[in-house]
Structure formats: C-alpha cells, structure tokens
C-alpha cells in the first residue's frame, strides 16, 4: 500500500525559507501571491494489506523519525 505524508511547519512557527521564496516570487512579478509555507513530502510504500494497520505504521514512522513534533505537523493520505 502506498501513502503520501506531507510535513509542514506548525502554524505559529517561523518559516525562513517560505518567507524568502515568497519575496522572490513577488519580485519576479507574481503580485497576487499571499503566502507560501515550505514543507516536505514523503511517498511511502508498506507491505500491508489492511489500510488501518498500514496507516498506524506510517503514523509511527512519522512520530519516531520523519516529523519534528516540536515544530511540525503532518497529514497522511493513501495514494
């Protein structure tokens, strides 16, 4: 089973990269741009046929390694 995990910074946390990318795009002429936040995307395949079990495994991976729970949030979606 394949899943995608999107990791983003928590709402109140400073995103230095997003800030600079946003300014650069605005300077390049994209004036309607309101906000950009930069995150990470993982695609994970597991040997598991039961979706609920698989999701639990992915969740564990996120909590243990992929996500810095102090400053990041994450969403798991089945692909």
């Amino acid at each position, binding site marked *: 089973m394949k899943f995608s995990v999107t990791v983003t910074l928590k709402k*109140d946390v*400073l995103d*230095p990269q997003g*800030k600079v990318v946003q300014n650069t795009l605005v300077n390049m002429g994209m004036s309607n741009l309101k906000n950009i936040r930069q995150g990470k995307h993982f695609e994970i395949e597991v040997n598991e046929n039961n979706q609920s079990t698989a999701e639990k495994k992915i969740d564990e991976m996120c909590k243990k390694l992929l996500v*810095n*729970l102090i*400053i990041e949030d994450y969403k798991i979606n089945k692909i």
Partner: protein
Amino acid sequence: MKISKQLIKKHGLKLEEFEHIKKLLNRDPNILELGIFSAMWNEHCSYKSSKIHLKKLPTKGKQVIQGPGENAGVIDIGDDDAIVFKIESHNHPSYIEPYQGAATGVGGILRDVFTMGARPIALLNSIHFGAPEHSKTKSLLNGVVSGIGGYGNCIGIPTVAGETKFNKTYNENILVNAMAVGHANKDKIFYSKAKGLNKSVVYVGSKTGRDGIHGASMASAEFDENSEEKKPTVQVGDPFTEKLLMEACLELMKDNSIISIQDMGAAGLTSSSVEMAYKGGLGIELELSKVPCREENMTPYEMMLSESQERMLIILEDGKEKDAKKIFDKWDLDFVVIGKTTNTNNLTLKFNDKIEGEIPIEALSSKAPIYDRKWIKKKPQKKEINLKNLKKIKFEDALIKIISSPNNSNKSWITDQYDQSVMCDTAQKSGSDAAVIRIHNRDKAIAVSVDSSANYCNSHPVTGGKQIVCENWRNLIAVGAKPLAITNCLNFGNPENKEIMGEFAECLEGIKEACEFLNYPVVSGNVSFYNGTNKKNIFPTPVIGGVGLIKKLSKPINHIFKKDNSKLILIGKTFGHLEQSCFLNENYSINEGLPPEINLLNEKNNGETLLRLINKNLILSSHDISDGGLITALAEMCMSSNYGAKILKPKKLTNMFKYFFGEDQARYVVEIEDNNLPKVEKILRENDVYYENIGFTQNKYLEIEGELKISTKDLFKINNQWYNNY
C-alpha cells in the same frame, strides 16, 4: 480577565512577588502588565538571585572600556581597536529542540556583540551533554552541533574554539553556552542608554510572531515530566535575516544617527524597551499597532512577550529616519517607528491609541526583587585515594583509556562541521590551547578560549572557581597571548536550594580571587539558574571565556611539536595530585576527593615567564597541562605533530601514575631548540620558576624510559575513534 493564583504561578511569579507588584502599582496589574512583570522579574532578566554575589567580581582594569551592565563587555587592545565579547546560555531551549535552541543561542549572542558596533569575528561554544549511554545524548549532540554550525556558517562568522563534555550530571539538562567576539573602533562603541525626549523608537528586523512567548520564564523553571508540554516556547532562528540585520546595523553605525541600540533577546520588546529607558532615566511609549507582525490578530500581550529572533530596537537622532530607513530597505528588513521617549518614567503601552498598560520603569528594573538567598558552604570531601587499594593497571592502558574517552577524544567530527576559515583571519584554528584571530588589516591578533571544570567545582567550589580562571588564563599564555579579560557563564541548579546557592557563592569567590590576582577582570557574563530536573540539580558549571592579545602576529605558537631532537621542559612543580583526575575517573570511575590546589603566585609567575620566553622566540611549541596530566599533554603534542617524545624517568619519583597523571596546576610543557636551552633555563631560574628537563622529541614513539612505548600513529588512531563510532 481576573488574575487567579494559578495564572500568577503560570507566569513564574511567587505570590509574594505578586503582592510586591500590587504595592508598586498601587493597584492590581492587568494581564498584559502581569506578563511584563513576569518577563522582567524572572531570573534570566532580573538576576534577582545572583546580583548580590555578582557585585563582588572584579570588573575594572586599565584594559576595560565597558564592564558588565551593557549588552557585552568591551576591552581596549591598543591603537583604536576594541574587542567586544560575551558568553550566554541557551540551555533549556536546547534540551527541548537542540538544533533551534543552539542556533538561536548563537544568534542571540551575536546580536549582543554587533549591537555595540562591533563586527563579530569569532564564535566559541561550551556544550555539555549527559552520559553517552543516555538515550537522549546522541540526538542532542547531533542537533546542537548542527544548530551551531547551521547558524554560524550561514551568517559567515568562523566558529573557532570550544569545549564539549559528557557527564551524567547533565542527563536531563544539557548546557549550551555560546560566546561571540567582535572588533570595533574604540571611539565608536554603541550603548543602550536612551537619551533625549521625544526621540523616535524604531523597530528593525524580522516581523514579530508568537515565538517563544514566555521563553524567559521557561528558562527560569526547572524541567519536570511536563517539559514536553513546554514545546511551543522554542523559537526558530533565521541566520540569513540575521546576516542582513547585522550588515544593515553596521552600515547605519557608520554615521551618527544612533543614540542607542539594543537587541531584542529574552523577553523581546519588553526587555529592550525597559532597559533602554531605565538606563537613560526616561520613560518610553509604544504604539503597538505599529509593530510589524507575522501572524494575524496578535494581541499587545503577545507582541510584548514574543521572542521572535533577529530584531533590534533603535533610538534615532532627530531627522535621521529617512536615511536610516533607506539602509534597512536595501537589506529588505522592516523599519518602523513604534514609539518615542518620554519624561514620564513609565513604560506606556498603547494599542490603537488606547493605553493598554502602564508601568513605572523602575518597578521593572531597580525595584525588581533582589534576593539574598540563604546558602551554606559545601562540606569538603577530604577523601584521599590510595592507589595501593586499587586494581593494578598497565600504564599504557591507563593512558589509552583517557585518550579514547568521549571527553578526551579528538573532536574533528564536531569542528569539521564549523567553518573556521571564513573571513580569512583565523591564524590558528581549534585544536590547540586557544584559537588565534588576526585583527583585520592589523599586525595584532587576539587569542580566545573557553573553559570549565564541573567536577572540580562540584567537589570544592572555591578551588574550582579559581582553577577555571587559571586554566583559561594558561590557555591564552600557551599560544603567546597576554590575557586581558573574561566573560563568564554561570550554569547552576536551583538557587532556592541552600546548597546550590552555596556552590554559586563559593565558585564566585574562587573566580573573584583568581581574577583579582591575575588582573583578569570580568567584563560581561550571564547567569543560568534552575538547571535541573525533578529536584536533581546539575554540578555547578561556571564557564570562563577569555580573550588575550598578541601584539604582533608571527606564526602562532601552538602545541604541535616542531622538530626532532628538541628539548622538552616541564614548567611548574608536580606533586602528583590524583583526586578528581581523569585518570581515576576514566579508569576506576572514582570521583571523590578534593581537586588540586591552586597557587596563584605560581600561576602568575610561571605564565608571565613563559610569555616572556615566547616573546623572545625561544619556544617552539607549548601546551598547558590540565585534564589527564603530563602524559596526556605529551600525547596530545605527539598526536598533533607525528613526532614522538622520549621522557626520562623522573629523578625524585614517588609513583609513576601520580607523576604522569596528576593534575597539579600552573604547569606547561614546552619544546625548545637544543641550543636555546641554556638561555631558557637562565630565564626560568632568574624568575624563580620551578622546572624540570623531562626529555626530548624523537621520531615515531612516545616513550617513558622503562614504562611506556607507543607509536604516535597508534595514539592518533585511538584518539580519533570515539566520535566516528558513536
């Protein structure tokens, strides 16, 4: 909103302190005002538990331009040059989020230096972790080192020296102390004292977010199981913005627009505005709706307590706003007039013209509580370790145990992650007793080093305090620098505990004594209390950061053996003191007993004489003797150079282990050209310096007559394993 007892506690204030606030205001504070008091009255900002003791430290000298009390200390290094430096802690945030905690620690200390008009030229750090086996240590080590490198490298300031130590005392509470050193023109130092009425108060730098609200309060609270809940108080650093901010400020400082300037560090806008007003004997009025915000709908409370990084507060001369704004626009930074100085002596906070809070400045500063906390002297554990009672070990194995230990292994794994060469003035990188930075476009250079000895301080705080100052002093002498002044970071446990307060008082007593004797004053520093978890406090860990001057830089002196067959001299007397030594700690896990005694007269005399020898070009290499004693110092000189040494069996020998592993102080090993020996000996004798001819350098092997023969290559291999394997 009613102020409940719980709310007071949540703000880190005691009920008595709240009553004190009510008296000062003549009414109850509102929630905004409560927040402001909680920020200004916490330990980190007010120094309420330490002020009384800190007053005793020697802070003056011919070389001192500015002592403690400003953003950083300033010393005169001759001609028009001044050095600005300070060390600060960021312990609690680094335990929670090691990368960002360490990174923002570096960011904060850099701002303290460039806010005074100095371009930062070097970074140092003193980092302490729990036992390597402890479950969190590896990730903390990785995170902290990456964070320090990530911030320092990005902003382009070389990280040139430091110390990294492991001790189970820090298992639940690591220490991350960051030190910055900057170069300024003696006549262009900027201070934080506000001057003049109706002057514009300008906010520059990054926008304000909800970062670290109550970080300063958190820094004063011990950790418990609920520490994980304290997460949202960690700030994210942005070294790129800091680089822009630094360049913009230094550019603005070229003319006379700035009356005063202060960085927004702990307690952000609150502490910077209050301190500027307090020093100037003025009031300050802020219109908070003008504060550039990153998030929507921020309240005055959030704006005043936010610890968003990379921001400064500037008080400008009349008519200078337009030109100043041009500079900040060039660097893409916010520049907003958010208030003015007044003669009310109040901190007046308005939001959309309505007064949301008003507090007399002195209530937040001079009338903040000062505690003379009860303290008791530490009972000295006069235990003497008798080697005869210990399991016999081979001399070689004992040495190997030390040089392969986490605390004494080669730290390239760490230092290779720091750019040490950027700015092209690093004459001597980390690895020797001190780093040497050339002053740009000058012949002169400064030497810098950072040192601590938690074990010594824990076993006998007064001696420990003396020892760390002496060791730091020796490290600068060993590279040919005249020690000028220090900054100190005082990391201790809970000051409400009589024993901990006693450790603080006694360590300071030792530091005071050594600083006075050596003419080595304290020009800046930081106190970090409440380092402990669940009532278990860390060992007292005062850290000393020292700066010395090399008037004319030639190739710096270091601890690398230069030649084959040169003579080796041991300066200073060896008594063979093993208690509290690396030898006993690493080989037998024994850490009882008293640390070696300090003889300040010998420290001064031996050091000054060595400096004289170095200045006469009579020394090829030199090394201060500290952890692991004489044999460890010799091993380090061998490993760095690919030469070995042959050491003759000492004539008046009591015990080989005591002689070679003893950690007696005031000692150095020096390498001398064969034909310079008579000259050197004459000078040593003339100055009443005790010395011994211990042997000579040779190829390949470190040898002690009849006791040890180990190849330099093997020593190097053993010394370079630990970090790579960890």
